[in-house]
Every structure is written in C-alpha cells, then in structure tokens.
C-alpha cells in the first residue's frame, strides 16, 4: 500500500526533475560561466581535430597509450598553455610532430578537447593546478568540507579521484551552480528521530524503509524511517555558487583535474 508520504516525495522529485531540465538547457544555450571559448571555437576545433590530430589520436582521442584527450588525460600537460606548447612544439621526442596552426585553429582544438570531444559541448578553461590547490584550501573554502588524499573532513564527498571521474564541464558547473550539479544521492538531509535527536548529514543510500547517511560528526548512520518523526531532503547543497574570479575558477578546475587517485 502506498502511503501519502511516498506520493509527496514523488511529486517533489518530479517538480525537481523539471527544474533540472530547464537549467540544463539554459547551460548550453547561454554559456553558463565565463570560460573563454565560444561554441564556434568548439566547432572549429572539431573540424581541425579530424583533419590534423585524429590520424594518431583516433576519433575518440584515446589511441595513444596513456592519453585520453576526451577526458583530459594527458602525459604531462595540464593547463591550456601546456597544451598549446605541446601542439606547437611537438612532444615525445619527435613522435608527435610540431603543428603550425593559426590562432583560431589552435584555440578551437583546445576548446574541443576541453569540451570533452562534444562538438556541441561547453568548453572549460583550465588553469594552473598549483594555484588551484592553494585556492581549494584557502579562499575557495573547498577543503572545509571535502577530503583529498587522506586530508580534510568527510562531510562532503572525497575528491581524491574526482579528476578521473568528472569532466571539466561538470566540475565547472559544480563550482558555478552547485544546485544544478549536486548528485541526488548526495543531497543534504535533516532527520529527527522519535528520541528527538536531530541528525544533519549527507545521504549515502536509501530504500523504502531505511536511509543511510554520514552525519555532521562523520559517523555512518543507518536509520529506520519508522523511527523518524521527520525526514527532510534539501535540493540545495550546503555550498553557495563560488565567488571566485573566472581565473581562480579555472585554476581550481586545473587542480581538481589533477586529482586522479592516490599517488
């Protein structure tokens, strides 16, 4: 038998889903964020890539061992200027030749790579990971909640591997518009038990009768819904859109992309 509560939850999530769709469309159309690449640049890059790069790197950008251009996995390069250096100067002791490209072509290839090989995607500018680390731990206040390689709190998801599992565009959206980027499973929750204990935390897992969370004391807790008098799920992350400058955002993205698991 379905209870009224379940219905409420379902209606709420439908409404939420609608809001997501609208935001997602807006993100493509109005170029959320202030990256330096235009849709035209990404399109240009797609053409230049096919002509100049695909022979060796392959249509998906993953044919050279240890490199996957579409997910931003390079041998050494990290920032956009690193990539420009590799393309214009050659690499791997001559195995990759130097390319003499026009500025708009070069700009386009970087944009296409940064857009994750999606000709209609949004390109993201990637800055300096060293500066990005300092911002992550300082002004950006990311390290107040996130843990990296064994350091930092556990209340928000561990980011040690985030550069390997998220695209640059997804990272950018997390910084600029966290409410549209927060994965549903990670939503903040507030629970009140029959014993009048109020528990605030992040959702880890849920089923019809129980919910599993990590609470603000970093404890793993499993609650039976029948033991709760109130269970609230927020669609707002605890973090507001960042007030960092566009250069700083690029640097933080550069740092996050460098996080590919433990060393």
């Amino acid at each position, binding site marked *: 038998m379905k209870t009224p509560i379940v219905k409420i939850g379902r209606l709420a999530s439908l409404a939420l889903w609608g809001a997501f769709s609208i935001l997602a469309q807006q993100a493509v159309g109005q170029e959320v964020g202030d990256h330096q690449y235009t849709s035209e640049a990404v399109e240009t890059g797609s053409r230049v890539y096919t002509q100049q790069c695909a022979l060796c790197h392959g249509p998906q950008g993953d044919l050279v061992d240890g490199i996957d251009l579409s997910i931003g996995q390079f041998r050494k390069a990290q920032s956009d200027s690193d990539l420009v250096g590799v393309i214009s100067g050659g690499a791997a002791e001559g195995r990759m030749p130097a390319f003499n490209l026009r500025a708009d072509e070069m700009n386009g290839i970087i944009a296409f790579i940064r857009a994750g090989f999606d000709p209609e995607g949004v390109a993201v500018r990637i800055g300096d990971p060293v500066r990005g680390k300092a911002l992550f731990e300082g002004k950006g206040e990311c390290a107040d909640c996130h843990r990296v390689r064994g350091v930092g709190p556990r209340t928000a998801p561990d980011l040690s591997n985030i550069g390997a599992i998220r695209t640059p565009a997804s990272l950018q959206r997390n910084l600029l518009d966290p409410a549209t980027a927060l994965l549903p499973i990670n939503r903040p929750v507030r629970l009140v038990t029959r014993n009048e204990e109020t528990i605030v*935390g992040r959702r880890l*897992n849920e089923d019809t009768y129980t919910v599993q969370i990590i609470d603000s*004391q970093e404890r793993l807790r499993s609650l039976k819904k029948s033991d709760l008098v109130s269970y609230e799920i927020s669609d707002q992350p605890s973090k507001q859109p960042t007030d960092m400058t566009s250069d700083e955002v690029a640097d933080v993205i550069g740092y996050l992309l460098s996080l590919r698991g433990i060393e």
Partner: protein
Amino acid sequence: MRTTMKIRKYGIAFLLSLLATNLSAQVSFERILNAEDEPENWLTYNGGYKSQRYSKLDQITPENVGDLKLQWTLQNQVFGAWQSNPIVADGIMYITERPNSVMAVDAITGRVFWKYRHVPAENALVCCGANNRGVAILDDKVFMGTLDARLVALDRITGSPVWDVEVGDVNQAYSVTMAPLVVKDKVIVGVGGGEFGIRGYVAAYDVDTGEEAWKTYTIPGPGEPNHDSWEGDDWEHGGAPVWITGSFDPELNLTYWGVGNPGPDWNAGQRPGDNLYSDSVIALDADSGELKWYFQFTPNDAYDYDSVQVPVLADIVWRGTPSKVMMWANRNGYFYVLDRVTGMFLEGKPYVTVNWSSGLDENGRPIPTPQDEGMPTFPGNQGGTNWYPPSFSPRTGLFYFSAWQDYATIYRAEESEYEPGRAFLGGGFSVLAPVPGAPTIGIGRTNPINNWTNEVGFASLKAMDPQTGEEVWSYDQFDVSDSGMLTTASDLLFTGGREGYFHAVDARSGDLLWNVNLGGQIVMAPVTYSVDGVQYVSVISGHALSTFALPN
C-alpha cells in the same frame, strides 16, 4: 512505515556543522588485543588474535536457537564461491566481494553505506578462484589484499583509498587472497601462488604509509639456516605460499603463519629434501619478522598438503601443566597439539584414514609410507581438512573443525619446468571413485545434485579433545564441507556445508539443535556480533550473506 513521518524536499541548505569533526569510536590496537572482551564486535578475521572463533555472547541459547529469524540478506553481485569473512565494528560490517570490492554495511539492516572496487590487473592469476577472504581494520582504516598482489588501505568512513602498494609481482603470479592481520602499527599479509612456482613470504607494511617494514621468505635463501633442505636452485621456485590469516601472541610477540605446499606440487622427487618451510607453521617476531621457530608437518610433500590452516591458540592446563598451546588439524590428516612458545611437538594423531604415513615419531615427524603408483592415497588432494577456520571453546575445552572422511586421491608425478606466470604442478591427480568414470568431488559445488554422493567422501564435523588428541564426537553430513566454525558462550556451535544447510549444534554433545536450508554452499565460517543488545549471527551461503537474530 509510520504515516506521521514527513518526507519533504527543501529548497534551503542545511548547515553542516564544520567544527564538529569528532570521529566515531576508533578501533585501536588495544581494542583488537582485547577483542574477546567486546563480543558485540568481530574485530579480526578469526574473531581475535588467538583465532578461537569463540564469542562470549550468549543471548542465543540451545533452548531458543530454534526461534532464530532471518533479519536481512545481502546479495553478492558476482558469481563464484563467496569465501569472505565479515568484520564487525560498532554496528558496521565490512565485507569483501569478488574479485576485490569492499562494502561497509549497516549490521542491523544490511544496507550498504559505501562500496570500493579495486580492478585487479588482467593478468592476475590464482589457482582456485578469484577469492578474497576479507579485510582487517585498525583505527580509521580498512585493509584489503588483492588478486594482483597489492595491499590497499581505505578510509573506514568514506571507503576512499588512502594508499595502495605492491606486495608481489603479478607477472610472476603472486597474489593476495587472505584477510590481512594487523599487529600494532603494521598490517601483515602473505602471498599466494604455490601452484605457479613463486617463492613465498610474509610481509609487513606501515599502517599509515604502506611502506614495507619487513619481509620474511618462507623458503630460506643461500646462507640462511635450512637452505640445505633444498637442492640446487629448487628453492627459487619452491612455492610455500601463505594464503590464510595468521594468529598473534602478544606476550611472546610472535605471529604464527601456516605455510603452503612446495612446488611443483605433486612431484616430490623433483625437489629432494625436506623443502623447509613448506607445509610448516612458522613463528615470526611481530616487529622484525625474524623467524623464531618452525614446525614442519609434512616434509618433502607429494600430496599438496598445504598447512594453511588457522593457527588456533589457547592457554590451557594441558595434561596437568598450564600451557600455551597451538592446536592444528592439518590437511595431512593428523591433529596436532604444539607448544607455541618453542614449537615443540606435544601430541599428534590421525583424525581420518591416513595411509601416506604410518604415524608420527616422538618429534612429530611423519613416518612416510608412499603408496604404489596408481593406488589411492588417504586423505586426498583437498586434504583431511583445509583452510576452513576451526573454533576452540574455552568452555568445553574442545577444538571443532570440518573434516573430509573417506576421501582419497590417486597421484601421478611428472617432471615440470618452471616458466614465470605458468602453472608449476609436477603431474596431476584423480579422486578415487567407487565406480569407473563416476563424478568426483571438485573444489566447489556448482551442481545442485550431489552426483558424487558420500561414497567419494563426506563431511564430518569433529570435536577434538586436545588433552588426548582424540575425537569426542562427530556430526556427519552427506556431502563434504568447506565451512568454518563458530562457538559461543552458550555452548552453541554454528557451521554449514556445501549442501547449504546452516546448522546450530550443541557444542558439548554434537546434537543438532536447529538448521535451515539457505540453498547455496557455505564456504566460510559464521560470525556473531550484537548491536543495541541484540545478538546476530551472520553466514554466507552461495551468493547471499544472511543474518539471523531472535524475534524482538
């Protein structure tokens, strides 16, 4: 579900208190040292450093065990024998899944908090299935060995990896299938690969960094004592793996490890000598890894009699003298009692039919009686028992384990040449069958029909008296059993078998008190724990971990 509860989605942010970073109770070394005094938890693979698999919990009794009710089931997402052993700490269970995943599970509901997946290298090689037998925990970390011979430390709360180091060379078929053993500030593992010509070892790693602290080979190199138990370069690929979790005596500061078979497995003539320390128990200093003593059960083994059983430790009055003993039902068919201070042999008697040896001399060395070619050897290749964890109950003074009765093998020896990463077996074997061409016992059960029947061998749950070395009672099953044991302070013995029955037996009499058909082979030992005053018993059958408790 109560209908008064409100579930709402809010458009506001909840403020997570950033100052509150108190970690939940840590599992310190001291807690593990005294694990038997907190029976609500199951803190090591074998339930404590003595490896007795005995719990002081007594809510479930012989009188009420028949009321046990299924509380929850966790289904495995992969196929293959699930030989993992859960760890339970403060209401959270840590369990591994093939090939190398770890889950943190709520011990009351069975729901999963996090899952970590390690993908082993494609060329990882193990003889007998992509097994992993579980994790170890210490403080805020969980440790797992991997099929590609790595050791991984995870954050216990988030499941994120903290460090990941190489234990052995995967290209030479080194692997780790055992649950690690944590002692003080070190996490200790041994390596598998005894069928692939490895040279075995036990190695310890710093719990914080994964840096190697010590490494002790199970085959002594040139210049080391007992190197002359091998000829020529046989020692380089002589096997002697360590693939079952050891035990620890804090007073003696000794860790104890069962060592596996020499290689090639079945051609003893190709490796003359005793082949130390294959088929032995070795005592290693916990801080330095230095070998303090050894006792070899089967010199120059031709039968794959790995001594990878769990070293079960007890402080008992043995024949009138307070003694620190080690009890061992060996794969070779003998039950042993050793002095674990010195490694001295105290007692040893066959517990099943044994014909490869006519007995043990006063030092415990077997008197070999190899059978003629084509004739059956008792016990067979899987042994009178194997790695299945036994139990010792300090209340009954008895040692419990799964034996294989009336099971024999015909061996065929062949010359083998070592090639890196390839099987190095030295021949083959066949299981003795009552009718030519009849099905025989395999390494696991994949067919719901027992087409080999008890005529090829059957399980006998045995209760042994270490005072006499004799069996006190036995509980026989139709099929063989790879199940381990659990005893409790209410004199219950929980175990299972390949038939899928989960049994509760009276630990004193051997009488069956309760059982339930869980439908899949039980190839690990049950564990018990309690949360909020309720005692639970968990067991893995087939692809499901089932947890029982008394109703309310």
